[in-house]
C-alpha cells in the first residue's frame, strides 16, 4: 500500500465512473425527483425540525442509491486482475475516498436543489458554515460505512436488497448524530457546543474507514 498506488486507483475509478454518464444522470434525477415529491407533498410550510429530517432522509436514500453500485459494477474477471496487481487495502482506501468525494458532491447538490425548491425560511438563524460542514461530514460518513457494506453485499451476490438490510442499522448511529448536529447548526448554536458533535462525527468516520481497511483483505480473497 503506497500513495502512488492509491492515486492510480483513484484515477481509474474516476475514469470508469465518468464513462457511465447514465449512472450519474440517474443519481441526479433521483435527488431532484425526491426533493420535488417532498415539495409537492408539503407545499412550503415546514418547521425547522421537519425540514432537517426530510433533508437527511433524502440524503440517506441517495447515498444507498449511489453507493450500491460501488462494488456491483465489476465482474469476477476484473476483480481477479486487480487482485494480482495491487494491495486490497489500497483498493478499499481508494474506493472509500472516491465514494466520499461522490457523496460530498451529491450532498451539496441535494442541498442546493432542496433549498431552491423548499425555500430558505429555516436558514435565517442558521450558521451556514456549520450546516455545510455537517452535510460534508455526514456524506463522508455514509460513504465510509456503505463502502464496506456494498462490498459484502456484492460478494454475497444479492445486491440491492441485502445492501439496504445490512446497511440501514449500521448507518443509524451516524444519522442520529449528524441530524442532531445539523439541527443545532440550523438553530445557530455556537461552535463551542457543536464542536463535540463534529468531533464525534470525525471519530465515527475515522473508525469506520479503519475497520474497512482492516477487514477488507479478508473479504477480497476467496
Amino acid at each position: 500500500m503506497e500513495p502512488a498506488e492509491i492515486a492510480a486507483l483513484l484515477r481509474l475509478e474516476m475514469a470508469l465512473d465518468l464513462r457511465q454518464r447514465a449512472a450519474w444522470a440517474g443519481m441526479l434525477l433521483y435527488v431532484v425527483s425526491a426533493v420535488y415529491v417532498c415539495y409537492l407533498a408539503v407545499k412550503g410550510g415546514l418547521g425547522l425540525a421537519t425540514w432537517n429530517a426530510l433533508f437527511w432522509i433524502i440524503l440517506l436514500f441517495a447515498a444507498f442509491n449511489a453507493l450500491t453500485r460501488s462494488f456491483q459494477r465489476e465482474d469476477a474477471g476484473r476483480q481477479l486482475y486487480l487482485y494480482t496487481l495491487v494491495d486490497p487495502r489500497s483498493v478499499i482506501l481508494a474506493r472509500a475516498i472516491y465514494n466520499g468525494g461522490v457523496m460530498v458532491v451529491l450532498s451539496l447538490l441535494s442541498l442546493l436543489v432542496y433549498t431552491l425548491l423548499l425555500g430558505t425560511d429555516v436558514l435565517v438563524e442558521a450558521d451556514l458554515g456549520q450546516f455545510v460542514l455537517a452535510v460534508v461530514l455526514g456524506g463522508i460518513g455514509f460513504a465510509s460505512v456503505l463502502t464496506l457494506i456494498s462490498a459484502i453485499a456484492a460478494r454475497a451476490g444479492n445486491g440491492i436488497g441485502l445492501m439496504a438490510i445490512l446497511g440501514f442499522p449500521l448507518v443509524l448511529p451516524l444519522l442520529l448524530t449528524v441530524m442532531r448536529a445539523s439541527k443545532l447548526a440550523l438553530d445557530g448554536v455556537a461552535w463551542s457546543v457543536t464542536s463535540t458533535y463534529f468531533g464525534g462525527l470525525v471519530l465515527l468516520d475515522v473508525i469506520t474507514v479503519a475497520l474497512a481497511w482492516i477487514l477488507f483483505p479478508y473479504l477480497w480473497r476467496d
Partner: protein
Amino acid sequence: MRNWWKFLGIGLLLFASIAGLLIPLAPALVHVSPDRIAPGPVDVTVTGYNTAFGGDVKVRLVNEGQAVCASSVAVLDGTHLTARFDVPVGFKANLTDLEVNGLVYQGALFTEGLGTGIAAQTCPEQTMPAKAFVFPNRSILYESIRNLHFHVPMWFTMIVLMGISVFQSIKVLGSNSLDRDRAAEMAVRIGLVFCVLGLITGALWARATWGAFWTNDVKLNGAAVTGLIYVAYLVLRGSVQDAHKRARLAAIYNIFAFVLLVLFLFVVPRLNAIDSLHPGNGGNSGFSDLDLDDRLRVIFYPAVLGWILLGTWMYDLRVRAARLETAMDR
C-alpha cells in the same frame, strides 16, 4: 468439576430472585386526605407504605422551614394515622410538606391563607426508625424497582453473548474454521432470545412507569438497532450458499457491526446526552444517587452474573446440538 459455573449461575439466580422479591421497600408516605389545608383546625389522614405506625408517633407540617406540630395523633393501624393540626395564617409557600417520624412527604398539602411567615414552633425531636435492609422507594417506581434485577440483566447477557460471537468471528477470519463460525451464529441466536426478552419486559415496565410501551429514548433506540443488526446478520447468512464464503462474510459483517454498535450504545448517547428517560442519562439521576443504592447492587450484580452464566450455558447447549446435527448429516 468442569461444570462448577453452571451451578454457580443457578445459585446466583436463585439468590438474586428470592432476595430481589423478598427484601421490603423502604417505608414512605404515599397519600394524604384531604390534600389541601386552610387556616383553622384540620384532621389529616396519612397513608404510609411499609410503615409501622404505633406507639409514640410525631407528626408535623413543614413550610419553607417553618414547622407546625400536630396537636393530637390517632394511629389507626400500621399504615394509617390521623393527625390534627391547628393551621395558622401566614404560611409562605403553596405546598406544605408533611413529616411522620422522619419520613417526609414533600409537597403533600396544597396550602391556602398564605402570608409572610408564622410564629416559630419547636416540635419534639422526631425519632428516626432504625435503618433496615430495604430497597429504595421511588415515587413512580415503587415495587417495580425490583424489575432492576430481572429486566436489566437481559441486556447485559445479550451484550456478553454478542461479544462471544465477535470473538468467534475474529477467530474465523484467522482460521477459516466452520466450527467457530457455527459458534458465532449460535451466540447471536441466543443473544437475540435475550434481546426479545429484554424488549418485552422493558415494554411492560415502561408502560407501568412512563405510561407508554415505547418511548423515543436513546436506550430503546439502541435496543431496536441491536435487534435490526443481528436480524440482518442472520439474513446475510441465509443468502449465501457456500459455507466457507458464508463464514467469512458473516464474520466480517459481525465485527464491523459490533464495533459500530458499541459506539452507538456507549458513545453516541454521551454526545446526545439529553432526552433519555432512563436513569443515569440526560437529566435523570442513576439509581446510584440513592443513599441505599448499595443495597440494590448487592442483589443486582449477582443477578447479572447469574443471567450471563445461564446465557452462556444456553449457548453451550445450542452449539453442542448444532455440532451433533452437522455430524449426523455427514
